[in-house]
């Protein structure tokens, strides 16, 4: 972005960068996001646009995940225990107050959980983390809360990291612009369309963060976000495109997104496993890395990161083998599989930076082994509709590129909806797999790890899709601050993690 050798310009840029530093010394930080939060209601933080601003800044959950290790740590709950299979007890931290001055107590927690699960509200947190299941919440005493589930829920503490706690003054049946929380920052001002201003909350229960005010703004263009950091207008742009990365300000980090080719295994010719295996063999992942895919990305065997519990190292990493792919297709053809049947390869317009080349290269690779692939581009909403049940009747076979992020640390938020026979976007209906998924979802400890591994093996056997990559993101970080983006950065930018130089 900056032209080397143009000293005057560089001088100007340095001056402006210094301006940014001055800004930072005043302990104000400006963060430029790609989009404005839609709502800062505590139960809407599961949507990334909202979570980036609100999670861990305005609100806390009972638990929280360590940004570096991914381990579950105490937050508003100082400890928790599983009383029996269906019962969990959480002890609340002492001396926590909400931004409105009221103290944190079991009533507030009970109210927060119940409001999040309220059927009259369309809470992102409920739809994302609490699909199915009954939860009865009781305040055992002022500092203790007991949650009873209808079925065993071994990862309830993990789920509780996503339920934001607020006082009982928040209306139960009505979504809010925002609400008081317990986080280190208070929403000071939200000028719609322009900025969200968070200021430090003096009564915060944890360590006082360095940053006094955090200003969140948004620009749709990655190049503008990057320029704002180089110009000192912003201190942090958590997500920029690879072409806007500069040596001085750019940082790569795993952004928790993983991609796969979602194959329509209900429609010929994709209903034949040999065809699906041929597709897995037809993709030259190594050639894609560093060309249509950032070289920082990693080849994937499962749709969640290796840090996720139950990630299996026994799933095949498919190697590029077009000869074998063609042989499989010939074999299938000999058995009467219509391998010439047209396959719609459906791309979503503007899915991710570089998506166009990404799709085109894949289409070429698939055609190369002899599949009749037609690349088509649709709007996000159209793709969403096509991918959710009920599926279109009488369709041609479809292939989608899916991107999925599971930062929760547990495959339960990935596998059942995609591979279970009840899953909203699942084309798999395998009783054996259903059983494995159900077991895994109900298991704890080592048993849970093993059960997820077994499910992963079964999925490989069925082969409903072709795994591609764990993606990387890039952040632009200004001179005035220190910040290490993690796989959580995409869903929450915590001002407390920012330190000033």
């Amino acid at each position, binding site marked *: *972005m*900056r*032209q080397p050798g*143009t000293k005057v*310009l560089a001088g*100007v*840029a340095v*001056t*402006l960068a210094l301006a940014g530093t001055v800004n930072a010394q005043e302990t104000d930080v400006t963060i430029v996001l790609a*989009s*404005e939060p*839609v*709502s800062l*209601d505590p139960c809407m933080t*599961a*949507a990334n646009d909202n979570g980036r601003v609100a999670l861990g800044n305005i609100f806390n959950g009972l638990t929280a995940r360590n940004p570096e290790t991914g381990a579950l740590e105490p937050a508003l709950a100082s400890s928790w225990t599983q009383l029996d299979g269906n019962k969990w007890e959480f002890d609340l931290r002492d001396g926590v107050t909400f931004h409105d001055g009221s103290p944190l107590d079991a009533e507030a927690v009970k109210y927060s959980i119940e409001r999040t699960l309220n*059927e*009259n509200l*369309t809470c*992102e947190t*409920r*739809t*994302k983390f609490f*699909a*199915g299941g009954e939860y009865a919440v009781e305040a055992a005493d002022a500092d203790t809360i007991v949650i009873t589930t209808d079925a065993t829920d071994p990862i309830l503490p993990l789920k509780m990291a996503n339920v934001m706690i607020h006082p009982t003054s928040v209306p139960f049946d*009505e*979504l*809010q*612009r925002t609400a008081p929380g317990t986080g280190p920052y208070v929403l000071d001002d939200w*000028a*719609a*369309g*322009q900025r969200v201003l968070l200021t430090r909350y003096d009564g915060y229960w944890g360590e006082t963060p360095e940053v006094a005010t955090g200003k969140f*703004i*948004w*620009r*749709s*263009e990655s*190049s*503008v976000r990057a*320029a*704002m950091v*180089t*110009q000192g*207008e912003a201190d942090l742009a958590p997500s920029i495109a690879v072409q806007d990365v500069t040596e001085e300000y750019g940082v790569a980090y795993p952004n928790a997104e993983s991609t796969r080719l979602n194959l329509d295994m209900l429609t010929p010719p994709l209903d034949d496993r040999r065809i699906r295996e041929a597709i897995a063999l037809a993709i030259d992942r190594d050639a894609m890395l560093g060309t249509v895919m950032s070289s920082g990305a990693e080849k994937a065997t499962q749709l969640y990161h290796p840090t996720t519990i139950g990630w299996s190292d026994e799933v095949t990493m498919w190697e590029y083998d077009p000869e074998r792919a063609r042989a499989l297709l010939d074999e299938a053809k000999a058995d009467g599989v219509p391998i010439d049947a047209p396959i719609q390869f459906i791309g979503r317009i503007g899915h991710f930076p570089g998506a166009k080349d990404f799709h085109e290269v894949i289409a070429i690779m698939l055609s190369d082994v002899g599949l009749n692939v037609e690349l088509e581009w649709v709007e*996000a*909403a159209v793709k*969403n*509709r096509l*991918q*959710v*049940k009920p599926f279109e009747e009488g369709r041609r076979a479809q292939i989608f590129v899916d991107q999925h992020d599971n930062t929760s640390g547990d495959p339960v*938020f990935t596998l059942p*909806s995609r591979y279970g026979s009840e899953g*909203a*976007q699942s084309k798999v209906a395998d009783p054996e797999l259903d059983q494995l998924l159900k077991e895994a979802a109900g298991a704890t400890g080592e048993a849970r790890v093993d059960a997820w591994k077994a499910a992963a093996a079964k999925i490989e056997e069925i082969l409903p899709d072709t795994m591609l990559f764990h993606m990387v993101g890039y952040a632009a970080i200004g001179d005035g601050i220190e910040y290490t983006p993690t796989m959580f950065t995409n869903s929450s930018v915590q001002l407390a993690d920012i330190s000033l130089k």
Partner: protein
Amino acid sequence: MLAEFLFRRVFYSCIALLGLVVAVFLLARLTGDPSVLYLPDTATAVMREQFREAHGYNDPIVVQLGRYVWNALHLDFGMSLRQNVPAMDAVLQAFPWTLRLAGVTVLLAMIVAMTIGPLAAYRPGSIFDRIASVLSLAAASTPDFWLAILGILVFAVHLGVLPTSGTGGFAYWILPIGVLMFKITGTTTQVVRGSMISSLASPYVKAARAKGMPENRIIFLHALRNSVISAVTVAGDQTRGLINGAVIVESVFGWPGVGKLMIDAITQRDFAVVQAAVLVTAACIFLLNIILDLIYAALDPRIDLH
């Protein structure tokens, strides 16, 4: 007569607005099941059903429409499904930003076009005319997006004289207006030049010369007055375009206008906001059309308001 004209126009505009509201409502519903579009893909069928029930999407479409129109007549345009504020509030907050941007842009563009256009037209084919024509053609066909990014790179990043984007003092207006002006000034200059050339070649200008009128009187009174009409037509079109939302410029510069709001609302399937935005922009465009008609009538006596 004027009162009658105004009454008639406002009356028809209201009918058109009502039609528009119905059309947008139906179109929005045609794009699919709101529960699929609105809820994340992990939501279960039960959740989707609950959502539809809670928001009345299970009622027959006519019932939904009737409810919407009835509420709209009571100035209740529904809540933004996403933002949890009245949809109309969100729109009315964004609209002035767009209006101001559009107003200043069109005004400046008109001033530039009305200066360069006649000068270029006065001696067609002269060096000045050729430079003006090439530049205005280039300006008229430069893509906004590209120009916006280039403007930021040049003026904010390399020269460091302007902020990259955002809102604030005077400096923040320069790039967005500059980018928006480019195309409008180019187009308007070309139209003014063209109509000025034909005005200057028209028999009444020849007649004015034969009458011995001085040249500046001929250009600025006889010819320009006729070209102003076509300039107003283009400027009107451009303003309509801008009121509809300078989407690209608003997005790139983080300008909190109605174009950005509308695009966001469409991608988020926030129907109430989309409808309110369409309603307000359409009402504003109807108003603009009435004002334009009045300006035409004032500029051209041959136009009859009936």
